[in-house]
């Protein structure tokens, strides 16, 4: 096994991909979006539960590779308590991290919490889509809430 592969599949990621924090859809939600990765047919539905402009929790369901599942699980851990704008900021930063080709981004530890374990994905251009799936879903949820206003 190369060092690269160990960097991509850190133990935290493999654990999250099995534990899937926040897995299971609630009967209702304030916003919900469905995302698809057409290359592999992976799918993910992500619900947003919020009160007064602050995220309460994120729940999701889907099937996909360990990267996409771990990423959704990590996002579930990160999101609660963030305002919409803060959440958007984190999504933007995470996207930047994913496009950094292994170089990382500033303030990542502080703002992205455990999700920075996904940094290794940025060296694998073809896998960035997997890691982004849940975050793109959250972005779509936030856009729905905006549109509803």
């Amino acid at each position, binding site marked *: *096994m*190369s060092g690269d*592969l160990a960097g991509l599949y850190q133990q935290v990621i493999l654990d999250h991909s*099995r534990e899937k924090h926040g897995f299971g859809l609630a009967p209702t939600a304030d916003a919900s979006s469905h995302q698809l990765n057409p290359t592999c*047919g*992976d799918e993910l539905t992500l619900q947003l539960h919020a009160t007064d402009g602050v995220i309460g929790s994120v729940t999701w369901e889907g*099937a996909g*590779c360990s*990267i996409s599942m771990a990423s959704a699980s990590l996002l579930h851990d990160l999101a609660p308590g963030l305002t919409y704008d803060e959440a958007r900021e984190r999504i933007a930063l995470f996207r930047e991290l994913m496009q950094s080709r292994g170089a990382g981004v500033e303030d990542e530890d502080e703002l992205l919490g455990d999700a920075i374990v996904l940094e290794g994905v940025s060296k694998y251009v073809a896998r960035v889509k997997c890691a982004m799936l849940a975050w793109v879903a959250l972005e779509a949820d936030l856009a729905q809430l905006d549109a509803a206003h």
Partner: protein
Amino acid sequence: MELATPLADAEVLRLRRDFPALNQQVHGRDLVYLDSGATSQKPVSVLDAERSFYEHENSAVHRGAHTLAANATELFENARATVARFVGARENEIVWTSNATEGLNLIAYGMSNASLGRGGADAARFVLTEGDEILTTEGEHHANLVPWQELAARTGATLRHIPVADDGTLRMDEAERLITGRTKLVTFTHVSNVTGVLNPVDDLVRMARAVGALVVLDACQSAPHRVLDLAALDVDFAVFSGHKMLAPTGIGVLYGRAELLDALPPFLTGGSMITTVTLEASGYLPAPQRFEAGTQKVSQAIALAAAVDYLSSVGMDRIERWESELGARLVGGFSAIPGVRVLGPGTGVHRAGLVSVDVDGVHAHDVGQFLDDRGIAVRVGHHCAQPLHRRFGVTASTRASAYLYNTTADVDAAIDALAGVRAFFGASS
């Protein structure tokens, strides 16, 4: 007939020197390329043929009278003759396309143009209306499914499917039931790009002929890998892609029986496919020019002929036998790994040199990544065959596909790597 000697590792290693891309490292390991079902690598002779054209003859074909143009036209038409011979066809039965997908769309649009009244009485046999049926199978590549869905939607015809059995073969009992007087066209793949199953062309052609239906063969996974005689198979149309058979991207072939091609209304229109053009209307040339509008894929056609020459010099019968040995070795090795399920036929059944597997508890993307880390390139995903994956109860699989430049060592490396996957991802616990 005497059986040809298959290739063997020593000879394959010699051939492999002709393929520059195979001589490189990935993640510090020698590349093991087992993704030829998606696209093949190219020998130096093919790269040289294309470059030499650009250094010497490059110019407009069928349009110029100067020396370069005459030379280019000659090379271009000789390429057509070479490819025609390779698949048992006549020159005017070979139409250049940019890939197999375009070839299938060409037939579908030709038929919808006929259905809109283009092509007059000659095109009557291509007309589809409500009540008519198009028959495809559950095992097709999207390229041989979606164009027919769209054709059905455009014409009001109904699309039906021959189901696939658990072992990946077509349910021929169902085919018998589905091919009726309403069936106007039957289309199916020669070899499945997921299971490696070889479909029974003769039986399907016989059934289709009995009801007067047209037959289309998707030869994408057969033309590169086995002896192909389209006239002997007696199909009406066939398609394949150059990039899967040692040639560049951007070139494909549509074969059609001459009398059908001359009667099918044109698809793409423009320069070089016309007789007389007035502002109001245009007359069209016979095939193949009829279907070759605008500046053609000239260097790519010439390179495809060089690819075909390379394949012929090795011997298609020998390549076919070698790949069938590699396929058997892959199936044997993969199915012996706990938690690995082969999609389609298992050991002991004749198959092409490609095998797709589902690994229990590990997503195909992760499997592929693990193999890539060892320098092994395989394909992961649905391989453009979502319905067939759904049939097998999975959304994605991992496919290893061999070609004439693969050795038994390549196959063994893939088997060895696959055996380590579940432990790495903690799926065996």
